[in-house]
């Protein structure tokens, strides 16, 4: 018995609902040596900004119980470099391409959307309004429903492409933010980005990250992510990409049951490059075992 894993994210047609989380897969170049990129549901590029960014001072990583902290700081070469060097590589695959962007201001988000709207081969734009590791922009936009609404509206005004807004979990009322970006024209919501965390070296008394605080990812944040996906699914009608500590097919199933239409894998890619392809096979096996024929049969089907 074959099962249907294909999903449609407000116009982004995916052969399966599994993609990398932005920033954990680069442009796919390195991973293409280890896995078959064409098996993925979509490619999601690492955040690009208008101008190149150096990123944060090291150390940028720290492993903690059931997860890791990072403070990379959106290091990237800027949109021009991305479009010239990385995007053509991504286009070689038969997979929708989602470009993730971040800006320091509304105008920067708007300008990035304007530029990407003209580029052939972009399947969707994801707004990163949730990076905890940069001083201006990033999380500042995602933590306020008013600013989240404004940045989404600015982006919406400048592109016809499917617009994904990636939310931060570092807020009290995630549903309020989700409703704000939906009313401003978001087509899809992705969540969650990392949780702000901190780790201290007990010998030197210094923080383990150069940036002092960083974003917590990995299995440690999965229950928070599932809860937030579930809450947002109650609040808005647009599709959700569930992200947060997914390492295997059953983790992914939890997100579908909570209401996600697709899922993204982040930190687990670092541990096992085949995580996403394993999840795709695992989802098929799970649906067959449970007697389902289509992934849509489990989306939002948590019994509460």
């Amino acid at each position, binding site marked *: 018995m074959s099962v249907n894993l294909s999903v449609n994210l407000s116009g982004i047609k995916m052969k399966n609902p599994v993609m990398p989380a932005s920033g954990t*897969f680069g442009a796919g170049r390195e991973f293409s040596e280890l896995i078959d990129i064409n098996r993925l549901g979509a490619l999601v590029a690492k955040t690009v900004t208008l101008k190149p960014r150096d990123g944060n*001072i090291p150390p940028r*990583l720290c492993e903690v119980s*059931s*997860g890791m902290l990072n403070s*990379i700081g959106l290091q990237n070469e800027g949109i021009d470099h991305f479009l010239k060097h990385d995007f053509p590589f991504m286009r070689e695959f038969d997979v929708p391409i989602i470009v993730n962007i971040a800006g320091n201001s509304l105008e920067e988000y708007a300008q990035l959307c304007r530029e990407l709207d003209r580029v052939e081969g972009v399947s969707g734009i994801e707004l990163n309004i949730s990076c905890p590791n940069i001083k201006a922009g990033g999380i500042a936009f995602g933590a306020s429903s008013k600013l989240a609404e404004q940045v989404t509206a600015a982006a919406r005004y400048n592109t016809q492409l499917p617009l994904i807004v990636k939310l931060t979990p570092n807020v009290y009322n995630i549903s309020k933010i989700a409703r704000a970006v939906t009313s401003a024209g978001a087509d899809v919501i992705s969540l969650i980005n990392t949780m702000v965390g901190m780790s201290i070296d007990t010998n030197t008394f210094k923080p383990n990250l150069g940036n002092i605080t960083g974003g917590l990812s990995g299995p440690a944040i999965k229950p928070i992510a599932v809860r937030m996906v579930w809450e947002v699914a109650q609040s808005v009608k647009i599709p959700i990409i569930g992200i947060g500590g997914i390492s295997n097919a059953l983790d992914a199933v939890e997100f579908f049951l909570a209401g996600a239409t697709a899922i993204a894998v982040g930190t687990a890619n*670092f*541990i096992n490059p*085949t995580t996403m392809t394993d999840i795709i096979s695992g989802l098929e096996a799970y649906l067959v075992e449970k007697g389902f024929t289509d992934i849509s049969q489990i989306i939002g089907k948590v019994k509460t």
Partner: protein
Amino acid sequence: MLQIKADIIGKEEVMPGVFNLILVSPEISRNARPGQFVHVLCPTDDGFMLRRPFSIHRVVPGRAFEILFQVVGKGTEALSRVKIHDTLDIIGPLGTGFKYSEDIRSALLIAGGLGVAPLLFLAEELVERQVLFYPMLGYKTKTQMLRYIDFKRLGKKTYAATEDGSFGHEGTVADLLNRTVHNIRPEIIYACGPVGMLKKISETADEFGIECQVSLETKMACGIGVCLGCACVTRRGYKMACKDGPVFNTRDILWGAEDYEKGLANGCGCDNEALSETDSAG
């Protein structure tokens, strides 16, 4: 780079808490260059553990390669419990290793403690290329002289220093280098060890106008150049230890910057054991 399941065909506790593993992989043994590393999934029951990077210590041509590590955290502890014929999930070979020009005639290889890990592979390569080289090895004490015999067999003349003076020069290899460099006059210095030692060596190399390449250790997540987590501060901006390095030319490294000191993983308590896990004399 490849992801493989490698059979363990050799395991030796070369001194208390320091292990050598021999892993079967014709591909990695053929393609690896000295200074490159492998990213190892440590067999642990923990639900989550990042891979650990280890310098390729030596290759058995066309068949296998070795890693040398000290137990310093959960990952290396798990790795120390593997048995012969277990398999390990490995990605490699990774990174940019030591560089040498075709016409190089003499080299000095300086290791502090576990810093011998990448340098033994280099030593064997230099022997093959008939390059004259001098090992200079620093240890805490006489009973911890990792790979001294191997280097002595391969090198022209081997220098040793121990912190307690129980063998060779009393003090650090950095001091020993200062005393002997004008006699040896190598064309190039290759070094691996604690950051303080590497910094001193690079200063001496600078003073005498000798090219110097060092293998740096940092925390890594992906190990393949994607996450940008293992940044090192260089004169040409942040460079990634996993891709641009782990071997860097010291003229590019910003030692003075406090940022850089923070950038290296020495003594960091988050238990992600670092490349070649240097832990001893400098």
